[in-house]
């Protein structure tokens, strides 16, 4: 009974959930390479890897934001409409030419952040669960997009489209921006007070409140950041497609796909537990799977079947681990641990 914190060396640790995500990613990569090569097509070519990374970048932005919101104990279903809104606003402002690039980006991000702040204020102020609050806000935006814009809108000047086409050392610029955002979000979560409060509020709002945490601030900030990242995704889609589109977000299915990637990355849907690194792993797994299946021309049903199975299996694995997580006190033939 005398063993005290800090007095004993760290024991052999169980694999963290994030480590598992990346082991699975490695396995998926190897398997994909084998399958694709067996089908007589190249997998590890610069072109194909760039395609995977591009696929990652857009979902990545949305999933990073979704991670913050889910850790804080909320949920954001309005992201696809924010993506579309950002592409429309960006394209609208940029239609005037290169001079519109900076104002266009700023306007798109500001409107996105504003939508996120509204989400957060509804969740905290009106105490509506994030699922419903963002579903409602998403519906309102989608109504506005559907009635005000038919087909494409505005255009992006070539100077802006360069972002969508540039590769640096074989890596698309949009992926680099996405990874930079992931690093910033990880820093926010693990190195700042706001980050600690996100975990605390997501884990238990009443515990956080009784600890003197202002419980509303982290949730509102998480929602604002999430929508801003969705806005960024919309702008990068604009750089790639060159015209604003009112349906580009909902076509991507970013609401459910981002939640799936976050959960696949080991973040607890109930809040309070999770990491951005895991989310990036989850996004990468989806991107590799999608890429392989389109290279192999797998039929669409099988594609969705595989995606769905991966999500369910992963979450079942995490649930099983969380049951197993309590360290046993006794092992056969060993002295009792404290």
């Amino acid at each position, binding site marked *: 009974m005398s063993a005290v*914190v800090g007095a004993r060396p760290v024991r052999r640790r169980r694999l963290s959930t994030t480590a598992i995500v990346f082991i699975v990613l490695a396995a998926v990569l190897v398997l994909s390479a084998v399958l694709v090569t067996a089908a007589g097509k190249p997998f590890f070519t610069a072109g194909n890897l760039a395609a995977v990374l591009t696929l990652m970048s857009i979902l990545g932005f949305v999933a990073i934001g979704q991670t913050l919101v889910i850790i804080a104990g909320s949920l954001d279903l309005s992201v696809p409409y924010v993506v579309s809104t950002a592409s429309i606003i960006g394209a609208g402002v940029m239609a005037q030419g290169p001079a519109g690039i900076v104002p266009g980006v700023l306007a798109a991000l500001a409107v996105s952040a504003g939508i996120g702040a509204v989400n957060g204020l509804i969740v905290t102020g009106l105490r509506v669960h994030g699922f419903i609050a963002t579903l409602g806000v998403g519906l309102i935006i989608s109504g506005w997009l559907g009635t005000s814009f038919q087909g494409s809108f505005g255009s992006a000047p070539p100077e802006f489209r360069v972002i969508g086409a540039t590769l640096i050392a074989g890596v698309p610029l949009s992926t680099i921006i996405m990874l930079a955002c992931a690093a910033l979000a990880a820093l926010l979560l693990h190195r700042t007070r706001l980050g600690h409060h996100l975990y*605390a509020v997501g*884990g*238990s709002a009443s*515990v956080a409140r*009784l600890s*003197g945490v202002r419980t509303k601030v982290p949730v509102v900030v998480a929602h604002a950041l999430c929508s801003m990242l969705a806005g960024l995704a919309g702008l990068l889609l604009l750089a790639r497609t060159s015209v604003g589109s009112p349906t580009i977000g909902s076509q991507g299915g970013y609401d459910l796909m981002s939640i799936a990637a976050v959960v696949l990355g080991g973040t607890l849907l109930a809040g309070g537990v999770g990491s951005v690194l895991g989310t990036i792993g989850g996004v990468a797994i989806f991107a590799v799977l999608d890429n392989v299946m389109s290279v192999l021309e797998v039929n669409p049903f099988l594609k969705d079947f595989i995606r769905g199975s991966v999500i369910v299996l992963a979450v079942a694995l995490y649930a099983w681990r969380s049951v197993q997580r309590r360290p046993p006190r006794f092992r056969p033939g060993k002295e009792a641990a404290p």
Partner: protein
Amino acid sequence: MLRETRELLSSIGVPDLDPALPVRQLSVAEQQIVEIAKAVSLDAKVISMDEPTAALADHEVSLLYRIVEALTARGIAILYVSHRLREVFDLCSTITVLKDGRQVGTYPAAELDERGLVRLMVGRELSAFFPDRAADAAPGEVALALEGAGNGFVDDISLEVRAGEIVGLAGLQGAGRTELLSAIFGADPFTRGSMRVGGEALRPRSPRHGVRAGLALITEDRKGQGLSLSLTVAQNALGVVRAVFPGRTAAARTELPSTLEELALVARGLDQEVQFLSGGNQQKVVLARWLAVAPRVVLMDEPTRGIDVGAKYGVYEVMRRLTSAGVAILMASSELPEVLGMSDRVLVMRDGRLVGALPPSASEEDVLALAAGAEGAEAAA
């Protein structure tokens, strides 16, 4: 169904519980009775009761006693798990002691006394249940004062707690002890009356406001309100200081290992999730998180609920250490021996109001009479 339920309830000795009431409207004690009735209705041969009295006040405990006796008379075996030694001796014929997941021994109750039982549970001799008061203790300035304070749950509360003093708060379940503590802390703020902390007028509007003023609240619901179970020992222990006094976080982190060592926390490390700690060790983490902000008034709600005898003694020692450092403690507890053994004065609540003050030399019967509103008790107080 109602008639059958009524028969069932009569058969375990509670004929006056209305079977048509939703369970939510029952008191905790009555809910427990329903649970027991459920087991009886299934024709159970063995009923396990895990801390059945943890949430009950003393007069409700005697009702449970009667039920247990009625059940054993019907030939039902009862496995009764409790931290309260008196109940174990009152009710049980055989006592099994577990320690650290192992069976220490099984004895006929007649062969053991409380002292011997505690020795088996703790593994060493405990000289007394409560540490002695410091010899030179003289209460200091008034640290917390209420004057006619009230909100929707408590009314007309006037009290003083001095620096270095432990004031006990006794009362039956539902008397408003928890509500009073959370009102002082700012979780359910007072709407009338005045409050002073360390001489300055202040009525906390939120827990954050309360913590800033030097208040700390150790809640009765450790798992639901005291700790973030999925976070680590260190994250929990630094949770309050980081939220309210961010500038002091680094210093608190440096001091944390020695604080936890002083509390004799048993854990695998600072990064272990608190959900895997025992109740006693979780309570030590709760204490650590409030020690880190150096409060001047500590509000404690059932500070030793659901923790073992050894850990209880540890909590009492921390309380003594705090008071000798000039901290004021207001402690609500359902365990009368604890209230009388630790407090310098005992305040008794009934129906949301303070109904009297007693010295620690008062008997448990005095406190109970006052708490239950027995006739003449108020005059005697």
